[in-house]
């Protein structure tokens, strides 16, 4: 209980605030120790390089090492970059293969919101509607459809007219049969 009270800025508070983490005494003390070590190493290096014989040798050695390091970095960067790229591509491929992107998009993406932002008018303006209509009309055998429908309508009308005429014939025949006292028609 007491230990917890002595630590008002607990680990959770430090972790949740990165700026406070940098101001933590442990961090600052560690950084200070590192800086002191670097300063000491620099001062030691400068002091050694000022020595009569050893300084010149050390300076040449450091210069040669630096040049060698630069050469290695210069010639070794491209293969390393290619290797890293290949590995990264392979990893991405494996991840994509393991993921169901369709389900992922369906679950995680608000498609309605995306679609609502689409400028439909701009898309329609880019479409050649007249050309599209002509292509559709070219694909449809319109004369054949008109011909078939016209033929069907005409045939229906003619059939109806003929049936009406036949019924009228029978009606007139029946009328004359009754007028002349005949029992029925003998065609």
């Amino acid at each position, binding site marked *: 209980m007491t230990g917890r009270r002595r630590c008002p800025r607990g680990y959770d508070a430090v972790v949740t605030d990165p700026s406070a983490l940098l101001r933590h005494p442990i961090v600052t003390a560690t950084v200070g120790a590192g800086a002191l070590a670097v300063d000491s190493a620099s001062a030691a290096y400068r002091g050694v390089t000022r020595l009569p014989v050893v300084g010149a040798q050390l300076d040449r050695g450091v210069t040669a090492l630096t040049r060698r390091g630069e050469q290695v970095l210069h010639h070794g960067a491209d293969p390393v970059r290619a290797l890293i790229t290949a590995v990264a591509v392979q990893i991405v491929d494996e991840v994509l293969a393991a993921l169901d992107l369709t389900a992922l998009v369906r679950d995680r993406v608000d498609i309605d919101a995306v679609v609502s932002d689409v400028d439909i008018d701009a898309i329609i303006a880019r479409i050649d509607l007249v050309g599209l209509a002509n292509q559709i009309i070219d694909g449809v055998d319109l004369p054949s459809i008109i011909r078939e429908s016209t033929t069907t309508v005409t045939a229906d009308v*003619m059939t109806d*007219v*003929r*049936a009406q*005429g*036949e019924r009228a014939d029978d009606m007139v025949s029946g009328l*004359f049969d009754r007028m002349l006292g005949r029992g029925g*028609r003998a065609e």
Partner: protein
Amino acid sequence: MTTPEARTAGIVSRGAAGIVDVLVVLVALAALYVGWVFLRLAFSPRAFAFPAPSVVFSTFGFLVTATLYLAVCWAVSGCTVGAVLTGVRVVGRTSGRLTPATAVLRALACVAFPIGLAWVAVDRRRRSVQDILLGTRVVYNRARATPAPNSLPT
């Protein structure tokens, strides 16, 4: 005797067909007149004047045209334009196509005595005077689309 597919047509269908045929002949006469006008205009444009055929000439032309039209149609197919529209057909004694001589005689009889068609309404077998004289019949040129009321089995 007639089969159900070849019932004899009555006065209404045949009268309607006759009216249509009269109109067809009139249109043909009008076409002949227009053609005659263009011929005269083409051969003598300066002396051109619209021909004014007399009533006798016009009547004679109508009768001749009607006779030719009916005879040719009946001899070729048994159907005039009016007959096609009303769905009837002229057949001979054996329910076949008319012979050319019968077609010409029937055409002459119909043009000379058109009122003979009225006998169709009176005759029990729906025959016109021309049909009785020449032994022809006018039948429906189709299967029966609707059952006729009061029709007897034939």
